């Protein structure tokens, strides 16, 4: 054995170390974690701890109370994208989420939170599936939690479909769109990886149908309302659509690295289409065609919600697996090159066009001309002008190079 070569091997590992800041951050995190989860001693198990008038019998509850009233911002923050199986997942579901629930006072806030947590379970499932880590037990647990929160949200919407149909309809449009996209993503990621998240996907479908019927109820109720109430409902839907578009455009800029450039183009097209739909809605309002305006805003809202879900989920998958989201080849076969992002993928022209994508608030329509973005032959728009967006997660042998 040539010893000189061996010393070079040794040398190749030099100069890799934590920076001082990184060390301190990690050590701080460790300290906080140890503080949050103290050693269990036999005497603690049966001790009664009085805290703010509540009697907490078990140390687990004591830790929760401690977490709620003390600030462990670092741990909580680090836990936010934890997955089942990660050490910090318990913090996410048993500390962060209950804390948020305690802070959500209004019915609106509770509903939004329930929708958000339900969606979080689905993002977790999709990320695990993309990693090939979604086993049966985990899927069942995620499904149970998803159903619990989705049901909470839809019950809320159902109850309010009588008293505030406009509000209920807007929320139902959003939730239904989100669930529809999650369902699609789960099926695609599941099939791309050979496993499947089919139990969860069918649960999502069931919830979606439930929300769909609540939406219909709310819409029927709204139609028999006063003129003022109807106008308010249209305005609400319009504002939600605009906000949805803004959020999605902003997010698309932030997560562009997760997409292959062809996919990025498709997303940009879809955003442009949603913007055009909102403009069409404004036009309808201009000629007092309220039902058509409502329909347009509803479609746009639904589309932007779907895009938002796709962006968020793809970004998560990319962050934890490094895989890029791409599309199948023209002949329908999977694109089998591992696309490791180099950070250069951009949404074409969108950085300049962002300003034109957000519709003006003055009510005048701004027709945006997006003919610069080329259309892929295989992505022909469907009847409604939307381009369907297949999601394929390619896997192959690694070609990564070691770089620091």
């Amino acid at each position, binding site marked *: 054995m*040539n010893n*000189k070569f061996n010393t070079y091997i040794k040398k190749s590992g030099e100069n890799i170390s934590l920076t001082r800041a990184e060390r301190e951050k990690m050590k701080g995190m460790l300290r906080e974690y140890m503080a949050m989860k103290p*050693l269990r001693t036999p005497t603690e198990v049966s001790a009664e701890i009085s805290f703010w008038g509540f009697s907490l019998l078990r140390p687990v509850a004591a830790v929760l109370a401690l977490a709620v009233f003390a600030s462990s911002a670092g741990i909580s923050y680090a836990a936010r994208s934890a997955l089942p199986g*990660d050490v910090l997942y318990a913090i996410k579901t048993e500390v962060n989420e209950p804390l948020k629930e305690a802070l959500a006072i209004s019915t609106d806030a509770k509903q939004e939170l329930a929708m958000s947590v339900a969606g979080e379970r689905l993002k977790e499932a999709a990320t695990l599936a993309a*990693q090939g880590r979604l086993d049966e037990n985990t899927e069942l647990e995620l499904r149970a939690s998803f159903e619990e929160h989705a049901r909470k949200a839809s019950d809320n919407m159902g109850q309010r479909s009588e008293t505030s149909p406009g509000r209920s309809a807007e929320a139902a449009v959003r939730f239904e769109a989100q669930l529809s996209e999650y369902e699609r993503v789960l099926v695609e990621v599941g099939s791309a990886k050979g496993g499947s998240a089919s139990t969860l996907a069918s649960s999502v479908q069931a919830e979606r149908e439930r929300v769909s019927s609540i939406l219909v109820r709310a819409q029927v109720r709204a139609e028999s309302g006063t003129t003022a109430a109807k106008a308010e409902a249209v305005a609400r839907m319009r504002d939600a659509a605009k906000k949805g578009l803004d959020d999605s455009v902003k997010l698309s800029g932030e997560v562009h690295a997760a997409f292959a450039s062809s996919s990025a183009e498709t997303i940009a097209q879809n955003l442009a289409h949603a913007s055009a739909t909102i403009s069409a809605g404004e036009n309808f309002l201009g000629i007092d065609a309220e039902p058509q305006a409502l329909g347009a805003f509803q479609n746009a809202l639904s589309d932007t919600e779907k895009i938002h879900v796709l962006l968020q989920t793809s970004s998560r998958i990319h962050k934890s697996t490094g895989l890029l989201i791409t599309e199948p080849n023209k002949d329908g076969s999977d694109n089998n090159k591992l696309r490791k992002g180099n950070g250069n993928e951009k949404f074409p022209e969108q950085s300049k066009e962002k300003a034109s994508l957000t519709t003006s608030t003055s009510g005048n329509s701004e027709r945006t001309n997006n003919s610069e973005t080329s259309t892929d032959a295989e992505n022909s728009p469907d009847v409604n002008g939307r381009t369907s967006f297949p999601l394929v997660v390619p896997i192959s*042998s690694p070609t990564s190079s*070691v770089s620091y």
Partner: protein
Amino acid sequence: METKEERALLEAFDTNADALFRHASFRIGDRERAYDLTQETFLKAWNYLRGGGTVAHYKSFLYRILHNLIIDEYRKKYSVSLDEMLEDEASAPAVEALLSNDDGRENEERIDERVLVEKIRSHIPELPEQYRVAVTLRFIDDFSIGEIARTIGVSENVVSVRLHRGIAKLRALCQI
């Protein structure tokens, strides 16, 4: 108000964090993930201690946790089958035979050291995982053969063989 367990783990952190991070970085080639895994190692260590476990030697304890995390990471990131993770055992001796002549020694002295080190670094990911583990633990972490054996759970003989073949393969990849 630190308990003695907390103090022990924090001391183990001071002693080992850097080395663990270097090990992870070298093996998976992704600095950010290496940071996460190193973090996760210590949090898992704490969970173990919390559950009443005792630790005699922190270094090997922590390395074992990290090693398992890296194996998981490798599996989920690349979805390779176990077969692909193993080198084709049949061809390995042939590769070794090609290099046993050692007239590579002359070439090596002429090559710029920096270039060689870069080459090695860039070819490490191409080593089959089993070889990569042995090479990393030996040369980056300075583990003895015995320590490597205990960390990854194989016999010392197996470690020696993998080490030998790993170096031979690496040289072949670097064309030395």
